[in-house]
């Protein structure tokens, strides 16, 4: 990030960034999809396809921040389930839907806050193990509340979140773009965002330079909870009802999108836009493969491979250099 800004601008360097690789990959996927199925390039189809994969994409924004902080949150999918189940259960108990939606967001925030507090108070525990246990606990509470039942039959207006259009554009797409702009500005244009990068690059140095590391971590994890609750709103609205096992495995998709988007797992590097491109890349890949009746399991394998290759390729570069291959000046930026 910093290096890019300081170096004199070069078109070659600009186009060799990971984000352009992603766009290229995105175009390749679209060309392949168009060739595979004559029904792919249909504007209505593509527009409505976004409705099916954008719900989980809301969790990508805070996850980008968490991974830049060198942490990880695998409890988000359980937060989705808990927030959704609490909302639906309260509604069936007679709580007005408006209030239930607010409580849904509050539940998400509390779940995230608990993660953040645990991670900050017990620094010897890694985020992996903390969110692993809260993942089981949140899902467990969802099971305690609804057991094996499902809850639903929400009021008409609630279905608008998942199915509504504003001027021919799906509402969820508009919400996603607005959130993307908001989080993009937060990460790249505010002191808060700069501090996240600083912590990711060197937590100790950041603490000594007066950055409130703990506070920022708690805020970011709480944001992750809130965005999980927003995912719960859109998901529940689209499905019309909810169960305790809803959103199972979403954390994997979200982490895959973030890692594919070029956010370094070593922390401190990556851009919001990369993750956003990755969201559409995986989304359209899934839609296209669905059109030609490719089994979902093939897609699982593809995503798994993409995830590993995306992390491994930048890591392999220094070794290739050491073997005496001519170093390329843009290698650093591709890796970043």
């Amino acid at each position: 990030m910093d290096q890019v800004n300081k170096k004199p601008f070069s078109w070659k360097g600009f186009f060799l960034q990971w984000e352009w690789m992603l766009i290229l990959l995105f175009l390749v996927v679209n060309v392949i999809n168009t060739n595979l199925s004559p029904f792919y390039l249909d504007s209505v189809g593509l527009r409505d396809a976004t409705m099916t994969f954008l719900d989980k994409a809301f969790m990508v924004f805070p996850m980008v921040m968490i991974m830049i902080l060198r942490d990880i949150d695998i409890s988000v999918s359980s937060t989705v389930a808990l927030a959704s189940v609490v909302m639906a259960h309260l509604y069936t108990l007679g709580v007005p839907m408006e209030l239930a939606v607010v409580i849904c967001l509050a539940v998400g925030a509390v779940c995230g806050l608990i993660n953040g507090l645990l991670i900050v108070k017990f620094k010897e525990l890694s985020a992996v193990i903390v969110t692993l246990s809260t993942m089981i606990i949140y899902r467990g509470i969802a099971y305690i509340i609804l057991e094996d039942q499902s809850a639903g039959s929400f009021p008409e207006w609630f279905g608008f979140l998942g199915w509504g259009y504003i001027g021919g554009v799906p509402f969820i797409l508009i919400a996603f773009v607005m959130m993307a702009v908001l989080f993009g500005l937060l990460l790249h244009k505010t002191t808060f965002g700069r501090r996240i990068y600083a912590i990711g690059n060197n937590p100790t140095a950041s603490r000594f330079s007066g950055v409130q590391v703990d506070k920022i971590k708690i805020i970011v994890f709480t944001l992750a909870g809130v965005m999980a609750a927003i995912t719960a709103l859109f998901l529940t609205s689209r499905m019309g009802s909810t169960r305790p096992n809803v959103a199972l495995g979403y954390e994997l998709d979200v982490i895959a999108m973030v890692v594919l988007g070029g956010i370094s797992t070593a922390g401190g590097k990556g851009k919001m836009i990369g993750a956003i491109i990755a969201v559409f890349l995986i989304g359209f890949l899934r839609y296209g493969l669905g059109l030609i009746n490719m089994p979902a399991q093939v897609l699982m394998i593809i995503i798994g491979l993409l995830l590993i290759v995306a992390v491994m390729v930048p890591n392999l570069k220094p070794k290739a250099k050491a073997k005496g291959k001519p170093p390329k000046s843009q290698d650093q930026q591709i890796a970043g």
Partner: protein
Amino acid sequence: MTANNGQKGTLIENIAKFREVGLLGFIIILSVVIQWRNSSFLTWENINDMITNTAILSILAVGMMLVIITRGIDLSIGATLALSGMIAALTVGAFPNLSPILAILLGTMIGLVSGVILGAIISKGGVLPIIATLGMMYIFRGLTFMVSGGQWVSAHQMPDSFKGIATGSFLGINNLILIAVLIYVAFYYFINHTRTGRQIYAVGSNPDSAKISGINHDKIIWLVYTIMGGLSGLAGVLWVSKFASAQGDTASGYELTVIAACVLGGVNIAGGSGKISGIILGSVLIGIMNNALPLINVSPFWQTGIQGSIILIAVVLNALVKRGVDMNALMRRRI
């Protein structure tokens, strides 16, 4: 684990030293309480049942312990287990005369190969264990569905000799328990009395000084994930033989239970420590909970939540005890 948090450092130190004793005490108290609520708990059949059910869990926990000691984590074991179990089941389905020993070897080999790939990605590719194992979990699950074509392999497709692996017994002891005990003994020797075994601890407690003292860091990491893969493969065959069915989603989410058993058994999630005796007790405790909660009329829907809370409490207590020990050591140095 069990003892209340003492204010005195010495007490905390004692808890840390006698963690296994504490855990054992907790298991005994728990058993007495459950027995008091439901008298069918401590019958021979039930205990035998419970230990048989725990055998597979504890085999996996041995491998997971090695992974966690090196500061890693493996989320792909459920998928590896399903893949090797499925392939073994399909093979014995196609060749009913195949010896059960060969089926076990086949499953273990598949697990080993999976582990070698995973270990190479982590040690040579420099991918974080959590990311690599998440990715491989996707891939192995996908492969399991693909080799099976989405179908189940059910009991009538498996020959009796294969099902006999888990139901048969030798000298009156169930095969699963025998295999598990063999693995405990082998790994107890491996991690305590061989050079490579000690190197695993060295890599976990301080990777930098391990590197400086000439330990091949990458090789140890690779080895650990290979062992984990092999044990998952073995567990896959045992699992399929025990439940007499192989499905695409066999053991999905089971990795969390295995991690829970390790954490309960006192394996430090920050790496560097863990004992075979601890994880056996941790596995038994999980086995008791799975077996006993239905017996004392706890709704099955509470089990997930209870299990999660116990993991969280265990890791938090571990951290607090560790803090107490460190503080004590510091104080002693000052004097």
